């Protein structure tokens, strides 16, 4: 019951937000929230720590960007092409990575994603190299709805993000999701019950990759450019951090985590300037450039002090009535 109220409240906030805040920033938030939810499907519900989700996010962004700018595809097909691209990358990476379990899985995904990054660096006609892909047009949805308007685009992105989130919720609560949780809790038992564990893992991996791709494609459409930053391993680290801060294995956690981390990244410079003004220590002025230092600190604090994340801690304290 509480959950429904929570979702309704979140949706109401999301609907009202563009009239108060800056729509492009809010859309960026939505994209990263979706990205974190997609990642959480893997770590939170299947127990696989992927260190290579930047590959799907970035690859899809580039496919969608090229589709819009160079191949002349309409925006809906461009986004679908991006998702398909991410799913293919996910299928190849997943098939290789699930051959090893645990910590090796993370290392393999990281290495393969780095390979994708080097690929992006080399195939400059596709990615634009160091300059990235600039000036991607937004186009018209289904040929009628002009997405050039920030507000229109915001509601389209919101609708897609809500639909994707609903799909994730449905997946988690489906029989398929239950098997995933069984694999996470006790893999040998899942095997002995007759489940083809590798196949389940692979399907979950591809699904997570495709949804991460959806987030990447939307982000390219929203911002109108795509750069190698999205393919870099720091992006994979960032999405892990969002999920960790919000709460791994909770549905709402990654949403909240994404909002917290992206807001922090954007406002850190201002915050540093404020601190410098208040304390008179010059060094705080450079805080905006030292984002990785602060994210690193949050990482360490989260792992040591509150591993359940914000939502996880709240559920622990107030939501004992019914196990989620």
């Amino acid at each position, binding site marked *: 019951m509480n959950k429904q109220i929570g979702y309704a409240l979140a949706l109401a906030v999301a609907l009202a937000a563009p009239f108060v805040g800056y729509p492009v920033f809010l859309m960026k938030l939505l994209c990263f929230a979706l990205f974190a939810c997609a990642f959480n499907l893997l770590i939170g519900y299947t127990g696989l720590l992927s260190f290579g989700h930047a590959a799907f996010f970035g690859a899809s962004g580039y496919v969608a960007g090229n589709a819009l700018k160079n191949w002349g595809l309409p925006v809906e097909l461009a986004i679908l092409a991006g998702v398909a691209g991410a799913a293919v990358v996910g299928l190849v990476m997943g098939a290789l990575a699930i051959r090893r379990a645990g910590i090796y899985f993370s290392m393999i995904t990281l290495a393969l994603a780095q*390979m994708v990054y080097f690929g992006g660096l080399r195939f400059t006609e596709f990615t634009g190299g160091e300059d990235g892909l600039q000036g991607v047009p937004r186009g018209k949805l289904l040929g009628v709805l002009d997405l050039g308007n920030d507000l229109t685009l915001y509601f389209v992105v919101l609708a897609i993000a809500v639909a994707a989130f609903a799909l994730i919720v449905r997946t988690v609560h489906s029989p398929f999701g239950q098997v995933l949780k069984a694999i996470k809790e006790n893999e040998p038992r899942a095997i002995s019950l007759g489940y083809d564990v590798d196949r389940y893992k692979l399907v979950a991996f591809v699904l997570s990759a495709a949804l991460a791709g959806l987030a990447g494609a939307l982000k390219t459409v929203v911002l109108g450019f795509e750069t190698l930053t999205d393919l870099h391993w720091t992006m994979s680290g960032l999405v*892990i951090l969002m999920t*960790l801060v919000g709460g791994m294995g909770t549905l709402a956690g990654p949403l909240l985590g994404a909002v917290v981390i992206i807001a922090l990244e954007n406002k850190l410079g201002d915050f540093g300037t404020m601190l410098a003004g208040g304390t008179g220590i010059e060094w705080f002025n450079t805080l905006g450039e030292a984002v*990785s*230092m602060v994210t*690193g600190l949050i990482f360490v604090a989260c*792992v040591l002090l509150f591993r359940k994340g914000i939502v996880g801690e709240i559920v622990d304290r107030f939501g004992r009535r019914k196990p989620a």
Partner: protein
Amino acid sequence: MEIFGYPLPMVMSQLALGLVNGSFYAMLSLGLAVIFGLLNVINFSHGAMYMMGAFVAWMGMTYLGMSYWAMLLLAPLVVGALGIVIEKTMLRWLYKLDHLYGLLLTFGITLLVEGVFRSFYGVSGQPFETPELLTGATDLGFMMLPNYRLWVVAASLMVCLSTWFVIEKTKLGAYLRAGTENPKLVEAFGVNVPLMVTLTYGFGVALAGFAGVLAAPIIQVSPLMGSNLIIVVFAVVVIGGMGSILGSIVTGLALGVIEGLTRVFYPEFSSTVVFLVMVIVLLLRPAGLFGKEK
């Protein structure tokens, strides 16, 4: 003289460069394997420790006027001491949890350390002079080999082999190997296992720091020098498997050589060849070349 249509000196010099890179892979993957064996933690911050080794050496030489040789000894000690602090204050609390948290913690430490150095030194490289004793090159008849590279390969081989000797052939190593197999039982025999764990972590990261000092004159000392390297080393570790000390040394050197040769014959693939080898190994022998199937 030519090999497959490529001039011999070119092939040989890339081969030598490959051996140098391979020495770094070997030292870093060896440290990762030793740490993983006893702590069950994949130390993501290994790259950051390598970077710190180089930076500490650079600082000592620039600010304190120390010699290269003094810093070659001191920098690993400083890095190792920091490692001990990290183990005692942070890593220690995670042993009972899923291995993933160790990886996440050390990842956070990497970002933190890199961020600190970036905020003070930016991303551009600091020049680092080759020690006078090792400048110049030796004429091998068919190629000129810079003396410093020869020294890097020799020094890292020496360090790697002595590590192997200590772990496989001495009593201390026997404790260590026993601790890897069954820490509780070893503790019951009166060995101070927590101390051993702390020192092992310190030693592992000191090895990374040592590699950093060795690398400093070859590549520019910059805050980002470690993070790209560590991902390649992860691939090396996946290829070799972490079960064997000698295995990680051999795999590291071999992949350096393969990378060097790729730079001659197929330069487009030189940055990805290690990852490609990883893919092939995963397809043919998922446990890694020296790993044991569980």
